[in-house]
């Protein structure tokens, strides 16, 4: 052991003399190992570590599915009255809770921040094993229909809104002008289960009664909503199946009773599907995180192949020293030990860098992947990750030392000292070099192909024109505070407010609209008058006649709405091209024909060009209905070249009515960007990984190929002496490297085909490697290999042969 310590020390000092070598190995291994540890950490949470909640294996989420003709027609959306029915009547659970999440506004704070809130029934806190720093969780007094304005703060909310005051209990927080009394503060380590599709952390908890769902939807069985959920702790005597059965019978009978006589829902049954918390939280991110791990592992392997080669080259350079050691009686194991000491020094350096990289990686994931990957808040450089990292480090040390000592020919070593001739003694076998280079090429192609596949899809989405003008256009909504208004007066107010905004000199046009065309909330069905059973799902946008002025959507046939049609709620509609095609085969013949919506016949006046909405939950089929709205939601277009601030809109609204306030305000470009956020992130991540891959592969290939050239330098000099020109030499070396390129290319084709075959067979991942990206990856990698082959000849092909022929060994 003492010896080994000594060995470590001397290795350390001898490595200091080759900084470029150490830098390359530590940098490449450190970055990739750090990324691997990050990926491991995530996978550990996804696959191994149990959830933190008590009896977590009994915790379930119940979702609705709609089944039509024995096929699932829709899932993930909930019927509010059915959820309440489950909550009230089911007997399968020890604890039950309802959750709804939404964005809301704190009005008792001057900046009026918009935050995420959850509206829950009292047992939510038992189910999630929540502990309190102060006060209490909700109890029956905050149960359903009690309308008791209490609020529970998370640690962060306590910090943000109350500055960690200790006498916070009993104080009030106004949420959309309702005064809620603080009854408790959750402890800092409380982990909100990310169960719904609304995957943002809630800052405060309010009683279920105050949820933001509209009164009509609360009672309507056929209105299906996102962001609400039923959760429960299964009775220990019951199987999940049995509970699912009970819930299904509750929801289905209620649904049948309440949709009687509806043509549309005739064949549909409303059923329950239970997911464990694990399933709900992890969702489909198992493959994502496994692929993440695989991708990073491939990167690490590139770096390992690279480091192995560098390590071997170093051994070759040290051959004389080794030979002397061998002559002095060093045995195989001594030499192995010396190499191990050196590789351990290097991997130790790489591990230190890896720790930093992993911390950055975890932070970046937490900041950027929230909502897309589960359990991110639990990520940290924990014990399992640290152990994993150490095991990786030790394994790598042994790999490097092992390959290097295998490459040493001990008999060759001793003869080396006698013959002073060149070429004898130690070399990296050409087969090993081909294998190393080929593996780098293979890994690079496969990784790039996968990345390019994702990148191409994302960039196609990002770059496709929307079909509506989003420049200079803004969307905003206004809340009326707790001012009492009848519906009629709201539409009246909307019109007047519209006039007020229109009067602003910066504004070109304003439209009252139910939702922006990029985020149409409403989904309904329409039919062709002659085919009353053929329901076509469409998005519905209700607006006044100014819609076209704001968005300049292309009219394919027909005309704009008139103000008259809006005022009279005339039964006319504009439809999207796709909807026109679905109903009437061809968009031109749809004009002046009719369609049935909500049981009423509408005349089609206009066909509008489709919007290429990148959001996955919108339809190409869109219905535009002219009508006055009982909502204060607007879009406006500002004049070109002038500036308009949010504040000026806020002021204008307040001038109009001091109780009114702007709730949402954003530009359509922002909305577009927000919809594309995931694609932009994908593009950025895949581009970065591609660059990293290319960088690592380049370093690695250069190491191997320039070693090849170095080994052949003298021979190349001879070839030049007998008349080979630089071009011949390049050709010759390319031919030499073509073996590695050939193998690298072929193996990657096999791997990619295998992946594609397995994917089609097993359907285990949600992305595929297309031909074009794979081809591009192949082309780029092969060109890179050729380029590096040429670069590796620097100093040989572009210099007088006398230098190559000089035998300074």
């Amino acid at each position, binding site marked *: 052991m003492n010896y080994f310590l000594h060995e470590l020390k001397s290795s350390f000092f001898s490595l200091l003399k080759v900084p470029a070598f150490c830098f390359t190995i530590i940098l490449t291994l450190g970055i990739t190992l750090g990324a691997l540890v990050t990926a491991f950490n995530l996978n550990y949470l996804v696959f191994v570590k149990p959830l933190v909640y008590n009896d977590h294996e009994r915790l379930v989420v119940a979702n609705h599915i709609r089944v039509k003709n024995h096929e699932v027609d829709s899932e993930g959306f909930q019927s509010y009255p059915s959820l309440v029915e489950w909550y009230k009547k089911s007997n399968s659970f020890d604890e039950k809770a309802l959750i709804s999440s939404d964005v809301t506004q704190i009005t008792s704070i001057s900046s009026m921040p918009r935050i995420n809130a959850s509206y829950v029934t009292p047992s939510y806190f038992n189910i999630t094993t929540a502990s309190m720093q102060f006060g209490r969780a909700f109890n029956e007094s905050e149960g359903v229909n009690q309308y008791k304005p209490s609020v529970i703060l998370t640690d962060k909310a306590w910090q943000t809104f109350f500055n960690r005051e200790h006498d916070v209990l009993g104080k009030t927080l106004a949420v959309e002008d309702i005064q809620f009394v603080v009854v408790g503060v959750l402890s800092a380590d409380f982990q909100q289960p990310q169960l719904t599709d609304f995957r943002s952390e809630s800052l405060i908890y309010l009683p279920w009664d105050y949820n933001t769902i509209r009164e009509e939807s609360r009672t309507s069985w056929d209105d299906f909503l996102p962001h609400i959920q039923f959760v429960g702790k299964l009775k220990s005597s019951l199987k999940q199946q049995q509970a699912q059965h009970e819930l299904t019978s509750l929801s289905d009978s209620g649904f049948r009773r309440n949709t009687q006589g509806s043509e549309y829902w005739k064949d549909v049954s409303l059923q329950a599907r239970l997911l464990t918390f694990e399933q709900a939280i992890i969702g489909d991110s198992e493959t994502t995180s496994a692929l993440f791990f695989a991708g990073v592992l491939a990167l690490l392997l590139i770096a390992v192949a690279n480091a192995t080669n560098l390590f071997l080259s170093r051994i070759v350079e040290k051959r004389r020293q080794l030979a002397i050691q061998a002559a002095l009686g060093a045995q195989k194991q001594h030499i192995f030990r010396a190499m191990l000491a050196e590789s351990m020094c290097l991997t130790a350096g790489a591990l230190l860098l890896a720790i930093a990289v992993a911390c950055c990686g975890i932070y970046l994931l937490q900041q950027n992947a929230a909502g897309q990957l589960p359990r991110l808040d639990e990520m940290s450089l924990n014990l399992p990750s640290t152990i994993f990292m150490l095991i990786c480090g030790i394994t790598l040390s042994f790999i490097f030392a092992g390959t290097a000592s295998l490459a040493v020919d001990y008999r060759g070593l001793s003869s080396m000292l006698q013959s002073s001739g060149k070429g004898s003694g130690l070399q990296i076998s050409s087969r090993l070099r081909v294998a190393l280079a080929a593996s780098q090429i293979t890994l690079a192609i496969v990784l790039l192909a996968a990345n390019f596949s994702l990148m191409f899809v994302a960039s196609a989405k990002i770059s496709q024109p929307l079909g509506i003008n989003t420049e200079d256009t803004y969307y905003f909504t206004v809340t009326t505070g707790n001012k009492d208004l009848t519906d009629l007066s709201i539409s009246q107010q909307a019109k007047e407010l519209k006039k007020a905004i229109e009067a602003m000199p910066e504004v070109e046009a304003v439209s009252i609209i139910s939702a922006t065309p990029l985020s149409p909330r409403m989904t309904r069905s329409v039919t062709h008058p002659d085919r009353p059973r053929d329901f076509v799902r469409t998005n519905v946008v209700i607006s006044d006649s100014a819609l076209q002025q704001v968005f300049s959507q292309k009219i394919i046939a027909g005309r704009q709405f008139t103000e008259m049609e809006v005022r009279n709620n005339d039964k006319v509609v504009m439809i999207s091209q796709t909807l026109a095609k679905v109903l009437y085969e061809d968009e031109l013949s749809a004009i002046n024909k009719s369609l049935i919506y909500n049981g009423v016949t509408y005349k089609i006046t206009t066909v509008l060009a489709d919007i290429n909405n990148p959001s996955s939950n919108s339809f190409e089929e869109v219905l535009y209905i002219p009508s006055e709205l009982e909502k204060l939601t607007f879009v406006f277009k500002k004049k070109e070249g002038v500036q308009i601030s949010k504040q000026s809109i806020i002021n204008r609204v307040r001038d109009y009515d001091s109780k009114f306030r702007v709730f949402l305000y954003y530009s359509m470009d922002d909305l577009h960007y927000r919809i594309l956020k995931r694609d932009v992130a994908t593009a950025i991540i895949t581009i970065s990984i591609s660059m990293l891959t290319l960088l690592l592969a380049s370093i690695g290939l250069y190491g191997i190929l320039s070693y090849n050239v170095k080994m052949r330098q003298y021979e190349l000099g001879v070839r030049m002496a*007998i008349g080979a020109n630089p071009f011949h030499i390049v050709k010759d070396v390319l031919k030499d490297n073509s073996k590695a390129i050939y193998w690298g290319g072929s193996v990657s084709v096999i791997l990619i085909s295998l992946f594609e075959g397995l994917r089609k067979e097993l359907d285990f991942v949600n992305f595929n490697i297309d031909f074009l990206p794979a081809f591009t990856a192949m082309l780029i990698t092969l060109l890179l290999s050729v380029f590096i082959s040429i670069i590796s000849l620097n100093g040989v092909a572009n*210099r007088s042969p006398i230098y190559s022929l000089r035998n300074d060994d």
Partner: protein
Amino acid sequence: MEKLKIKMKNISKIFYTGEMETHALKDISFDIYEGDYISISGPSGCGKSTLLSLLGLLAPPSSGQYLIENEDVSNLTLTEAATIRNRKIGFVFQQFNLIDELSVVDNVALPLKYQTPPVPLNEARDRAIKCLNRVDLGHRVDHKPNQLSGGQQQRVAIARALIADPAILLVDEPTGNLDSKNGDVVMDMLEQLNKDGTTICMVTHDARYADMAHRQLHLLDGEIVEQKQNVMEAV
């Protein structure tokens, strides 16, 4: 008067390695005529190999003028130099420098591959076999170099140097890696080639072999200190 093959006028060569300058050749001038057999001798490090390399266009001179068959070759690109090397110069090295992976005949035919356009394979092989016959190795064409003795390898190298009918054969210590018996065989062969008309310029520090040349150049510290006409030629 014999035809002037090579003319070197005030040739110098300086090597720069890092901070260091090595003046390997200083102001060398001499001529070589068709059919000449010249030997260059001198102590180790005096610049013999450098001079041979310059003659063979393996490196350009730092200054001075160099003509081959009246063509100025002092300032050529790498590719131009390669072409002239290929057409007009044959090299024989001390360490034979055959390519281990190639068979004997392929080694010999290699220069033809580097011609533009490359000589067709069949023709190249035929010509290579002819050259091998000239060095008495017609029976070893398909062996690998490492299956041959040192003397045989050197003869293969000579065959390779001859294949393109060079204007001059440059030979750097051809016997340095051979025992005296094999060395004699190689030297006899060179003498025979010269008698058949090949112009030869040879580096050697073996006085016995130097005497076989028509003319001897003696180098010291990069300068020609002595030119000696051999008696043999006068005969």
